[in-house]
């Protein structure tokens, strides 16, 4: 894809959370490397899926990209401008263009505010609209996400999980952003509601030309919604590719193991499904192993994997992977 279509370029992004000891004089004794040297592009209008198991840094990546957490190192270029360098009002101005939808529809809405106040707050902060116009815009937004505009004076506790998530989406859309981080927007919802919310997100993307960074751990849902998919393991992106290529011929052994866990809704195929069962636990992000982060559990780990951190390189056109084995195979072919 052409470079000028890149909306967000993430370069060597790191987010470490310090671990400190001592009450009065705190000593810095280490870091939880939640996001450790991650690079990827997000193209305008696409949905980039970000998958990985719990605690691998998906959410932190999403939050760091839109500067809810300030990165420890690295850059996030939004249309060429580095968000990591921005401060104060510049950053506040950029916030109009990027928004986030949260995972927990119960915690993400302030219980003391009415729906109107919640959805209207971004308009209020950026002084976009006031009074009657603001109210009309809020009603329009509620309608857009499939809620009755009469709900404007109600409080979040009067709504179901799916309805609350719609309120959260309406709030994210209030400022007409172009880029939205969807931080597991469906994982807290009932399965029957999940489809509704995903369809709403897809419909809105088509209608408003949105770009999504879609974080999830539901692999089939990610396959459904994403154009490209990035797989994370222990703070690093291990593989990034087109959706179909990733699901059909995953390169990284972790991706292979992850995908082998997905049940196939066809009893004949499902019968033949071979699960790759990984041994052991995910190492602590405060103390990642030497070399490849996956080397401790990788079924095909080699000597070099325990010593040298593999580079995240383009194996085929648009298919990136960080694995010594894959790289050596590619070199053998060429």
């Amino acid at each position, binding site marked *: 894809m052409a470079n000028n279509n890149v909306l967000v370029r993430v370069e060597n992004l790191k987010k470490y959370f310090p671990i400190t000891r001592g009450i*009065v004089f705190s000593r810095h004794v280490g870091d939880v490397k939640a996001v450790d040297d991650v690079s990827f592009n997000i193209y305008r209008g696409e949905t980039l899926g970000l998958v990985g198991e719990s605690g691998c840094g998906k959410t932190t990546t999403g939050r760091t990209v839109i500067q809810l957490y300030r990165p420890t190192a690295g850059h996030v270029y939004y249309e060429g401008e580095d968000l990591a360098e921005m401060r104060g009002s510049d950053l506040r101005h950029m916030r109009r263009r990027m*928004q986030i939808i*949260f995972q927990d529809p119960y*915690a*993400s809405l302030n219980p003391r505010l009415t729906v109107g106040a919640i959805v209207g707050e971004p308009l209020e902060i950026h002084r976009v609209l006031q009074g009657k116009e603001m109210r009309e815009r809020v009603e329009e937004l509620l309608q857009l996400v499939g809620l009755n505009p009469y709900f404007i004076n109600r409080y979040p506790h009067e709504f*179901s999980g799916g309805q609350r998530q719609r309120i959260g989406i309406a709030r994210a859309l209030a400022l007409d952003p172009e880029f939205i981080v969807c931080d597991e927007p469906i994982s807290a919802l009932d399965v029957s509601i999940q489809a509704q919310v995903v369809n709403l997100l897809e419909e809105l993307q088509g209608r408003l030309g949105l770009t999504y960074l879609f974080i999830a751990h539901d692999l089939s849902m990610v396959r459904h919604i994403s154009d490209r998919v990035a797989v994370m393991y222990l703070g690093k992106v291990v593989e990034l590719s087109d959706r179909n290529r990733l699901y059909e011929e995953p390169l990284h052994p972790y991706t292979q193991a992850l995908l082998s866990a997905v049940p196939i809704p066809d009893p004949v195929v499902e019968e033949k499904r071979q699960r790759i069962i990984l041994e052991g636990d995910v190492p602590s992000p405060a103390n990642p192993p030497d070399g490849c982060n996956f080397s401790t559990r990788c079924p095909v780990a080699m000597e070099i994997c325990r010593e040298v951190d593999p580079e995240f390189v383009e194996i085929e056109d648009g298919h990136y992977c960080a694995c010594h084995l894959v790289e050596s195979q590619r070199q053998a072919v060429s």
Partner: protein
Amino acid sequence: MTASETVASTAVPERRKTAGVWADATYRLARNKAALLGGGLVLILTLSAIFASQLSPYSYSEQDRLQTDAMPAWMLSIFPTVRPYAKITSDFPLGADYVGRDLLSRLIFGAQISLSVAFVGPIIALLVGTVYGLISGFFGGRVDNVMMRIVDIMYAFPTMLLIILMMAFFRSTFAASQPGTFTHAMNALDRRFGGMLFIFIGIGITAWMGTARLARGQVLSLREQEFSLAARAMGAGNGRIIFRHLLPNVLGPLIITVTLAIPGYISTEAFLSFIGLGVNAPTPSWGSMISDGAQAIRTYPHQAILPALALSITMFAFNFLGDGLRDALDPRLRGVQ
């Protein structure tokens, strides 16, 4: 739980103002009989303290030397041992004290002292403590560390001793005799406040710390909640997040603790007045009245029992109100002490 929860799913939505959290709480409070009783008593006490000079039959300092220790006839049936020597009067509805002052009037004026303490404590606790705790919890890290260590140090202060020392120092004749000095100014100010200044200072120094800790703890968890992050993602500044998103969510528990602390302030004042360190005579305080009455508790028990009763009823009223507020604002805590 509440009826309003089911409303969202009903078929015909209509435009209406639904019950907010505060309206909900008011409704629950109004259905709690003990809290209503407590609230009613507090209201009556407050009104009688405000309109003390209109309500009371006499002034609190007016003496009738001929009627010292006099008591009304109906009291004899309650305290039969007094019968042989009692001086019966119909001038004073609740009798007179040892210098012939009307007990009822003194009780009504005494409410002024107790209630001013009851309101000054919470106001300081809410204003200072909440802001302190919000700032400490919100900014976290080093700021939080320093601010909370200050609270820890202040907690170690023996409040009662501090109040007593301040009174001993600033009320000495030495302090009063040198105009233009700080001690003299404090002495004058104390007399302006009718001897309440140091009690206010003492309560003010201690009252805010509990609230600050509570507010900080709440904020620490709330600021990581997704709605605070959402506000940040929208571009909200710190002030907006603190006062619009965090404060309303911590206010409930704060109001509860502050209300439940009121009986403590009242009893502090009563205790200090009882040991003679409270208000200046002849201003009546329930504590000093109990102290006066205690001198003659065998001969005239009503002189100590009446102010003690007023004190207990007031503390009960605030306790009931506080419990009711707790149940109303945080129904999950019902029955938890």
